[in-house]
C-alpha cells in the first residue's frame, strides 16, 4: 500500500479552504448568536465541527423547534460520514483509539482531497488538510459571534460560492475514466432528484449509493478474468 503523505503536505492542500471556511464560520456565528448566545456557537464549532450539521440544527432552533428536532435534522446531515468512514477506514493506522482519533479529521473537503482516485485514501492529506479548516471554522464562528450586529450580509462577498467551485475542481480531477464519470453522473442525478422534497442531508447521503456501481464492475471484471483463465486452460 502507498505510504501516506506528510501532514504538512495536507496542510498546504487545505490552505485554499481557509478563506471560505472562515466566511462560513462567520455566517454561522452571526446567525447563531441571537438564538444560542455568544458562547454556545463557538463551543459547538469546536466540538461538533460539522458545518452542515450545525447549520441544520441552527435552522430548526431558529424556527423555534426543540432539541430533538434540531438533533434529528443535524444527524441526517451526519449520515454521510458513514460511507466516507467506510471508504477511509482501511487507510488509517494504529489501534482502535488511534483510528478513532484520526477519524475525527473527516470533513468533506479533506475526504475529497485525500482520495488518490484508485480506491485508496491518504491519511496524511486527510489530517493535514483538516487542521487549517478547523482553525478557520472555530475562529470564524468567534468573529461572527463578536461582530454579530456589525456584519450586515456575509454573503455579499460571494464567499459561499467558493465551496461548490472548490468541489468542482476536485470533481474534475476525480471523474476521469468511464466508471468514475458514471458514478459522478449518477450521484448528481440522485442528489438533484431528491433535493426538491427530501429533508436536508438526505440527497448527499443517498448520492453515495452510486459507489455501489463498483461492485458490478468488479464482478464483471472477475467473470471476464475467470473466462480468460478457463479458455486459457482449454487451449
Amino acid at each position, binding site marked *: 500500500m502507498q505510504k501516506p503523505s506528510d501532514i504538512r503536505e495536507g496542510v498546504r492542500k487545505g490552505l*485554499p479552504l481557509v*478563506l471560505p471556511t472562515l466566511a462560513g464560520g462567520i455566517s454561522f456565528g452571526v446567525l447563531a448568536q441571537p*438564538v444560542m*448566545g455568544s458562547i*454556545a456557537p463557538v463551543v459547538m464549532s469546536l466540538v*461538533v465541527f*460539522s458545518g452542515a*450539521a450545525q447549520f441544520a440544527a441552527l*435552522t430548526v432552533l431558529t424556527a423555534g423547534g426543540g*432539541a430533538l428536532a434540531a*438533533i434529528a435534522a443535524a*444527524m441526517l446531515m*451526519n449520515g454521510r*460520514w*458513514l*460511507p*466516507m*468512514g*467506510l*471508504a477511509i*477506514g*482501511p487507510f488509517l493506522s494504529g489501534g482502535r483509539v488511534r*483510528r*478513532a482519533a484520526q*477519524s*475525527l479529521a473527516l470533513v468533506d473537503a479533506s*475526504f*475529497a482531497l485525500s*482520495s488518490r*482516485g*484508485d480506491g*485508496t485514501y491518504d491519511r496524511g492529506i486527510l489530517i493535514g488538510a483538516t487542521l487549517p479548516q478547523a482553525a478557520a471554522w472555530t475562529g470564524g464562528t468567534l468573529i461572527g459571534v463578536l461582530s454579530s450586529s456589525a456584519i450586515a450580509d456575509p454573503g*455579499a462577498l*460571494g464567499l*459561499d*460560492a467558493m*465551496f*461548490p*467551485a*472548490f468541489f*468542482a475542481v*476536485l*470533481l474534475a480531477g*476525480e*471523474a476521469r475514466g468511464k*466508471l468514475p*464519470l458514471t458514478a*459522478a*453522473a449518477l*450521484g*448528481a442525478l440522485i*442528489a438533484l432528484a431528491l*433535493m426538491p422534497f427530501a429533508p*436536508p442531508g438526505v440527497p448527499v447521503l443517498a*448520492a453515495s449509493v*452510486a*459507489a455501489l456501481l*463498483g*461492485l458490478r464492475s*468488479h464482478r464483471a471484471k472477475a467473470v471476464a478474468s475467470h473466462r480468460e483463465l478457463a479458455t486459457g486452460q482449454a487451449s
Partner: protein
Amino acid sequence: MSAVWLTIAVLTVGTFGMKILGPLVLGERPPGERMLAMTGLVAPALLAAFVLYETFSANGHGITLDARAAGLGAAIVAILLRAPMIVVVLVAAAVTAGVRAFS
C-alpha cells in the same frame, strides 16, 4: 438555553460516532479488491452531489437558482482553462458577489 446545550452535547457524540463507525467496523483488515472498487467511487459520487447541493440548495430546503449558479459557471470556465485552484475559487466568489451587487 438548555435545549441549545442538549443539542450540542448530543451532536458532539453523534457526529463523532458517525465518523468513527466505518473505521471501527472495518478494523485493521487490509481492503479487498471488491472494497477498493467501491471506495474509489465514493469520492466522485459525493463530490458531484456536493457541487449541486452547495450551488442550488435553498437553505437546505428545496432547490433555488441564484447568484451562486453564475459563480459555479465561471468556475467551470476557469477549470476548463486549467486555472489553478485558488484562481478558480476566487473567480467563483467574484462573479457571485458581482451578480449579487447588480441584482
